[in-house]
């Protein structure tokens, strides 16, 4: 059967191999990501990625405490199962909504778009998306964020940027977490910075300890600066992941 009225002007013709199309496979996701950007022109959206257990939720808790009174923050947190993380954040007064992915290893833009209808975003300046703990799959999905931040705990080892290049390649900031454990583990901040900049020459690197508080002022200053920049410029640039 010869397809009738195909959308593409390079029509598929019978069984003759034909270069009839060049379609971005994640077109649907990227389309929704753009819709999210269009819907949140004044709000800074930060997609926080890492492997499980790097301390994303603890970082969100501490960030919320420090930024209270300076700006309004909300968190969409994704996990394959349970509402535990959202509860942990609400316990410290953060406006948080759980996205249960039902076993899925990453968040897709559609889940964020739907979640926006279920969280109160009035007067929110900063929306975090705490992604599913995974350094592989979330890297491929644009969620409409302005910045992607990857958290890497000192206990995970400093060899991760080269092992998971796409994640580090697509992040603007690397946060080395659990820095209070650096004296006890074979992790070199210098080596991880070098490897991260091999895969992404523009990446910024900060070292933090959510438990001890080291580096959190610099992290919060970074966020405040980006929130202000977003409000001023109303960035609507589309990023390609």
């Amino acid at each position, binding site marked *: *059967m*010869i*397809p*009738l*009225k*195909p*959308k*593409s002007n390079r029509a*598929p013709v*019978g*069984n003759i*191999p*034909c*270069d*009839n*199309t*060049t*379609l*971005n*496979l*994640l*077109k*649907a*996701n990227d389309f929704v990501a753009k819709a999210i950007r269009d819907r949140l022109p004044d709000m800074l959206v930060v997609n926080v990625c890492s492997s499980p257990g790097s301390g994303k939720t603890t970082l969100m808790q501490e960030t919320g405490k420090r930024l209270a009174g300076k700006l309004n923050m909300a968190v969409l947190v994704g996990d394959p199962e349970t509402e535990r993380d959202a509860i942990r954040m609400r316990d410290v007064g953060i406006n948080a909504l759980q996205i249960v992915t039902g*076993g*899925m*290893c*990453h968040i*897709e833009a559609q889940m964020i778009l739907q979640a926006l209808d279920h969280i109160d975003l009035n007067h929110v300046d900063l929306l975090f998306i705490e992604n599913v703990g995974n350094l*592989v*799959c979330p*890297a*491929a999905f644009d969620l409409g964020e302005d910045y992607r931040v990857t958290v890497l705990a000192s206990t995970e080892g400093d060899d991760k*940027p*080269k092992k998971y*290049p*796409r994640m580090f*390649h697509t992040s603007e900031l690397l946060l080395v977490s659990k820095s209070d454990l650096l004296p006890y583990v074979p992790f070199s901040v210098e080596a991880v910075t070098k490897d991260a*900049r*091999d*895969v*992404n*020459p*523009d990446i910024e690197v900060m070292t933090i300890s959510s438990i001890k508080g080291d580096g959190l002022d610099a992290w919060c200053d970074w966020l405040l600066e980006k929130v202000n920049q977003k409000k001023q410029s109303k960035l609507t640039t589309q990023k*390609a*992941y």
Partner: protein
Amino acid sequence: MHEISLVRNIFRTIEEQFPESAPETITCIYLRAGELSNVQPILMQNAFEAVVQDDPRYKRAKLEVEITPILVYCETCKKTSEVKQYKFVCACGLPTKNVIQGDELLITKVEFLN
């Protein structure tokens, strides 16, 4: 897991692009995946078969995956070079993030039955 999502995205994209063509008439789908796209051909094949079991409309279709190397274009020396071991530097030694190939995930060709 991620591959299952990608395969579903392939089907959704094709159905949007060729709304008048029945999926049953597709014989082959060609995918071009950059080295940076985290796509493993064998896992894509497995995911493809798994999704087709749920959606037998595509049971005639084969999947061909081509992996492309990462290429960067250096604005300074105006040269294209291949990124090896994920080190994003030009042959001239300058770091660059100007990726011109290797992060794509594209359906490059769809073959239909007569």
